[in-house]
């Protein structure tokens, strides 16, 4: 994994880990280190009340597998199917000294817990003049490609990015996922941690020791001079693939992975555009009022005079995610769409 940026200083052993296991590592190590860290959500352990079924699931994606046996049901809490209760309980616990990690399973379910998130947790510190802190992590899965239908495939990151008071983290690889989860748990503000469900089995080299990646610092998985490609979450995978194809044609790309979309590393993007003069933003979300238009807007406003071509965004169309596999594939941004956009800004 190439991460040519300010990654934490890691000296020890590394091993190849999946995105899923990297997050699991981060949570487990933090729970060992800090007894106030708890996990709650639907089936985060699984099998509650059923003999021999404890830890049957570890969450439907298996991210919290093995935590209950080690830390017990007091700290790994299977909840009823009520997102409002999960987030409400987590916010209250955070205000009272715990560091809860609440799981929303599918981030599409944010709707039924939205008041707890945006009108409560996000505002406590602000409204109480800094006297209250809300150190909670809300985990949720995002994204399509999993044949999960419109209600389990959305990219709703722009909705939470819009809300002041929330930090929004979207790791694109296992290395970042671990370091950002550690930082999210240690952070004193509510952090929305969005895991892309098609990336859980993606592997890369991950240090065994704990390390925290600071928020607001973009990674540059590829470096180049001709075009800047900003991509988020799973779209980074496509952007890197596109950059590698273009490199063979002699076109070099700065691929920027902001890693956290709130705070956003505007500076890294603007500096890169100063060099390349061309920008493509790849985001799986819907186009209107989305992150892609937000980044395009930042560059149009602050980096206009560096631009040598109009900005191009590659997003999903403005519809819900289709269930039919052919339609879903057509719906999602992919390598070809990124390549086309890059060629367009290059005038090729």
């Amino acid at each position: 994994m190439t991460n040519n940026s300010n990654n934490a200083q890691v000296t020890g052993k590394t091993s190849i880990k999946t995105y899923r296991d990297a997050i699991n590592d981060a949570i487990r190590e933090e729970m060992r280190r800090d007894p106030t860290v708890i996990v709650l959500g639907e089936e985060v352990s699984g099998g509650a009340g059923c003999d021999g079924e404890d830890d049957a699931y570890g969450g439907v994606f298996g991210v919290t597998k093995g935590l209950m046996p080690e830390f017990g049901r007091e700290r790994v809490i299977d909840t009823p199917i009520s997102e409002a209760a999960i987030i409400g309980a987590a916010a209250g616990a955070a205000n009272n000294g715990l560091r809860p990690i609440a799981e929303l399973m599918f981030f599409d379910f944010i709707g039924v817990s939205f008041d707890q998130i945006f009108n409560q947790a996000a505002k406590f510190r602000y409204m109480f003049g800094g006297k209250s802190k809300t150190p909670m992590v809300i985990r949720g899965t995002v994204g399509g490609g999993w044949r999960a239908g419109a209600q389990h495939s959305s990219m709703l990151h722009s909705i939470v990015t819009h809300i002041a008071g929330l930090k929004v983290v979207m790791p694109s690889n296992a290395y970042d996922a671990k370091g950002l989860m550690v930082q999210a748990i240690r952070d004193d503000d509510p952090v929305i941690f969005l895991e892309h469900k098609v990336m859980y089995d993606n592997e890369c080299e991950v240090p065994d020791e704990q390390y925290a990646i600071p928020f607001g610092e973009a990674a540059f998985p590829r470096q180049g001079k001709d075009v800047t490609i900003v991509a988020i979450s799973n779209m980074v995978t496509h952007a890197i693939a596109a950059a590698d194809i273009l490199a063979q044609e002699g076109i070099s790309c700065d691929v920027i992975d902001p890693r956290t979309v709130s705070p956003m590393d505007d500076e890294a993007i603007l500096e890169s555009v100063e060099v390349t003069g061309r920008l493509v933003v790849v985001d799986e979300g819907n186009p209107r009022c989305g992150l892609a238009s937000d980044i395009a807007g930042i560059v149009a406003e602050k980096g206009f005079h560096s631009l040598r071509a109009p900005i191009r965004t590659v997003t999903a169309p403005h519809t819900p995610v289709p269930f039919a596999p052919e339609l879903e594939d057509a719906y999602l941004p992919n390598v070809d769409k990124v390549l086309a956009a890059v060629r367009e800004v290059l005038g090729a």
Partner: protein
Amino acid sequence: MSNEIKSIQMPKWGMEMSEGEINTWHVEIGAQINAEDDLVDVETSKIINTVTAAHSGVLRAIVAQPGETHDVGALLGVLASAETSEAEIQAFIDSHKTANTEAVAPEPVAAEPVAAPVAAPAPQVSNNTALAEGGDDSHIAASPVARRLAAEYGVNLNNINGTGRHGRISKGDLEAAVTAAGGQLIGTNPAAPAGAAKHADDSQIKATPVARRMAQELGINLHECRVSGERGRVCKADVEAAAAALKNKLPAQSASANTAASSSESQAISGMRKTIAGRLQLSQTAPHYRVQIDAELDNLLATRKQINDANSETKISVNDFIIKACASALIRVPAVNVQFDGEQVSYFNDADISVAVAIKDGLITPIIAGANKKGLEGISHEMRDLSTRAKLNRLKPEEFQGGSFCISNLGMYGIKQFDAIINPPQGAILAVGTGEQRAVVKNGELAVATVISLTLSSDHRIIDGAVAAEFMAVLKGFLEQPATMLV
């Protein structure tokens, strides 16, 4: 009573004064002040003067600290009764700040790393006269950076070739034009990089990815960069600044090992130096030409001896004679006794003669007003008084601002002849060399005479060659036969 809060403000001494630097406060917070009491010394571009109290009261706050520069009208301190509460005083200061944010002193907080380099772009482009000329350039397509720099450096965009996007003038175009004119745009100069850190491992230094990459490409160690990026990172601009500093520094180092010299380069110029630089640069818009003439001083020296011998109190100098002779010549040739602002010519009935006086760190031109109406003794006394007070920075603005003609005398240094630059908006300046014994030819025979070389620089837009020549001939006549000035 208690709400009687009075402000002490930066005064405006003369038309040219736009700001002043706080020198010394004569009073301390809590002191009872009476009207007319001396409060604070303020240095302007030309003088140091004392601000006196307009009201009586207790000095409750000193807002402007010594060393700070404030605009005219800025709040310097607060006078109020002893009963006025601190909160009221603070509210008064705050209201003043919001009312006139321009006047707020550059507090340490304002000195952000990004802002700091911007503080230095004094117009230091030399020889860009041609670039400054031309009419309205607001319609010329230029990048905002290029337009801002052009405004800062007094460049008219009509004179620049645009090669940027869609033929726009870019920053590079401006740089190229200014460089071609022999000038230099002052870059964003960070603190000089520390050479010792050059080879140290910089992987631990926080930097944006672009900055790190650029530093590698340019061979710059991140230790050498200032840190002005977000989240405590070295950003691209920091690396660029370090590169510019390195570039500026290297030739100087190879030319001489004197590092002390390079440290003086970055010294900010004083207010006076700024004024001198600005005015003389302004003068470059005036098409100068020179006429030179020699005058024999033997008669003048004899007359001077007579006068000085007659009264031991009197010490008339040759310079006093020159001032008097110029005044007389200006009345005789009034076309030289003028000011020109580029649009209008002003003719004067009296000869108000500015005399350049070298003082510490600069020069100043106190004025002998109405020199044509004054006797040699009056001129002599006044000149001595003015030059003494000039050296103490104690001239009043009206004593050095204005003047219809200027004399610069370097004779005391043994300078035989030199050219002077017109002090705008005046139309001409006389450069006076040393009076020395020279071989001259009189009636076909070699003789010795005390001769002085005089050079008049004139603005050809308003003074033609023949007029300047006539003036010089008349001046020569008065100097060679001083008695004719009595007529």
